[in-house]
């Protein structure tokens, strides 16, 4: 019974973390942008969702609109700034951090600093093997699985996906073969931002909405992507989330919260060392 309870907790935490990290996995994993503004994108998604809900738009549509909103912001960021710095990862790091500073301030100015909240569209919980599962959380979990699977299919099976992967493998050759590099980068960055926006909106009912909420997931998302393996969209994100989120839960059973959180970061550093290119990559690429 206890085991089932723990397993379900781990499942829920893993899926939430995977959802939050997915946008970063796309942007960092595929086109190498160290997006320190990822947390701000999650926050922006949450606020946009709150805003659309206040206009009485159905929850599901709000999520989509928020995703689009954040995607537009992301594309603008890419077009005006990031585009010139793809070969300078440290500079993209700093620029995206500046994006975080500015976005957070703009959110504070537009929406104010009070706590905001969104009610979960599905209330209540249901019992499975004697364990209580919040209905909404479970739905988000299913949605995350669906989302990651679809994205993976797009990247692995479709034309577009093959083009993108070609681009990452070898930019020059891909360009020579007629691929519009700029457009592809823009599309990927936009898609990653879209995912971050959606994630922010979906997570919002579970958390307090304040200008800094997304940053809780920032460092964790980075570790998920690195530990899981840069470039492995599905398996990397899932395994990374499981290792980071799952171990935190498991550690928490045996010790207190602070120790478990600290241990996870320590574990991440150790894993970084053992597998510098992530769990999924066996050799140096």
């Amino acid at each position, binding site marked *: 019974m206890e085991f089932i309870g723990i397993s379900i907790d781990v499942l829920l*935490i893993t899926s939430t973390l995977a959802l939050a990290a997915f946008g970063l996995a796309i942007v960092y994993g595929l086109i190498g942008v160290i997006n320190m503004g990822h947390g701000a994108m999650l926050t922006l998604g949450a606020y946009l969702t709150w805003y659309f809900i206040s206009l009485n738009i159905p929850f599901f549509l709000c999520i989509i609109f928020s995703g689009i909103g954040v995607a537009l912001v992301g594309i603008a960021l890419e077009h005006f700034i990031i585009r010139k710095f793809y070969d300078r990862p440290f500079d993209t790091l700093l620029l995206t951090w500046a994006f975080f500073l500015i976005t957070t301030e703009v959110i504070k100015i537009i929406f104010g600093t009070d706590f905001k909240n969104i009610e979960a569209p599905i*209330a209540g919980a249901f019992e499975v093997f004697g364990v209580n599962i919040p209905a909404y*959380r479970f739905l988000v979990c299913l949605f995350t699985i669906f989302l990651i699977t679809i994205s993976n299919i797009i990247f692995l099976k479709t034309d577009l996906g093959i083009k993108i992967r070609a681009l990452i493998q070898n930019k020059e050759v891909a360009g020579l073969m007629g691929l519009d590099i700029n457009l592809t980068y823009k599309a990927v960055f936009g898609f990653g931002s879209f995912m971050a926006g959606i994630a922010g909106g979906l997570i919002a009912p*579970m958390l307090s909405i304040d200008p800094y909420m997304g940053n*809780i997931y920032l460092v964790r998302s980075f570790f998920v992507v690195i530990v899981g393996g840069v470039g492995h969209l599905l398996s990397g994100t899932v395994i990374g989330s499981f290792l980071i*989120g799952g171990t935190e839960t498991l550690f928490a059973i045996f010790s207190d919260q*602070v120790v478990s959180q600290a241990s996870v970061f320590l574990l991440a550093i150790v894993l970084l060392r053992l597998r510098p290119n992530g769990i999924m990559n066996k050799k140096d690429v």
Partner: protein
Amino acid sequence: MEVRVKKNKKNKSIVNKKISRRDAIKSIGYLAIGALASPALIRSAHAANPIKVGVISPLSGAWTVYGKAHIAGFELAVDEINAKGGVLGRKMELVIGDSKTEPRIVVEQANRLIRNEKVDFLAGTFSSAERNAAGPVVKALDKVLLYPTFYEGQEKEYYPGVCNKNIFMFGPEPTQQVWPHMEYMMNKFGKKFFMIGSDYAWPRVTNMVTKRKLKELGGSVVGEVYIPFGTPQYESVLRDIRNAKPDIIFHSLTGSDTVNFRQQFAAAGMKEDFALWTVDDEEVVTTGLGPKVSGNDYVSFDYFMSIKHPNNAKFLKNFRKKFGQDALMNTVGVAMYNAAHMAALAIEKAGKLDTASLRENLKGISFNDAPQGPVTMRKDDNQIIVPSYLMQVNPSWTNVGNMFNEVQSFQKVVPLAARCSLPL
């Protein structure tokens, strides 16, 4: 510095001084120093000799949420005081410092306000950490600090953040906020407490003090968990709670963590099974939670917007007139309001303004128009004596006006003596 002589079209010599790096650095330096000094210069050009109060508030950073009510209370009081002609014929004036929710910035701001802006006394800081950061400063520079927030009480080891003769506490400590209501809660729900709080001194000491009374009343602690700041997921804690089967969840989480926890607690359907008593979630947080998540939970403080004291009706009217119908006020903002008025009263009583006489006259002073009912500053340990209210959140609240229903209240709760060498 190079001086070049050019010949322009009309063959006249133009002396063209190029700016060297040295000059550039120097001019930036002068600009910077001038800028640092300018607020003092500008202010001294203004009207006759006001009483300057340095207010340190979290206007940016993680606890921006609390900054507004914090400062609003003080501003309202100052308006009222000035409308009546000020203190000793002088107007009161606020000089604001943003603490950015960072204790190290509080050190900076406290020094700046006292040394640069030459304020007469300080008010504010929000968290215990911020107050502790200001402690050495007000001790070394000998200025009074009026501290508004509900806190963990004074223990000698945290001197000079507490037990500091210059720091006056206008918010309740656990023996005032928690003890009076324990018997009621235990009689109603049961004797087993599960304690969950953020991982820092206020929740830990509050729990320690609560446990003392709990033992006296025959209760027990079936779980005690401390959560680091910025924890998004509470699955494991929720499971621990279910396994421990408590009667009451005693809650002292702060910031966004409290909202995260209570949202997930409600989503897991646990509200039906356990009573929740929070000593942190006032109007600002409860507004962020919404009625479904917060409904039927218990909260205890010295002040709520919903309390039905005649003083409060008058206070809220003035407050809303100045800040709008939807503005939020809470225990901390009201403590700032009381602090301003009580300081004014103390200065009037002393007939003059300096740190020693302010200190002497604040001790023992009463303020009968406090929104929650009359309050008194205790002589020996600089601790305010306030009412204590236990409220239950209305499950269908729509605004701060109908958010809380009173369960019980005590007009005057005398706290335990501070654990310092008294008198201060």
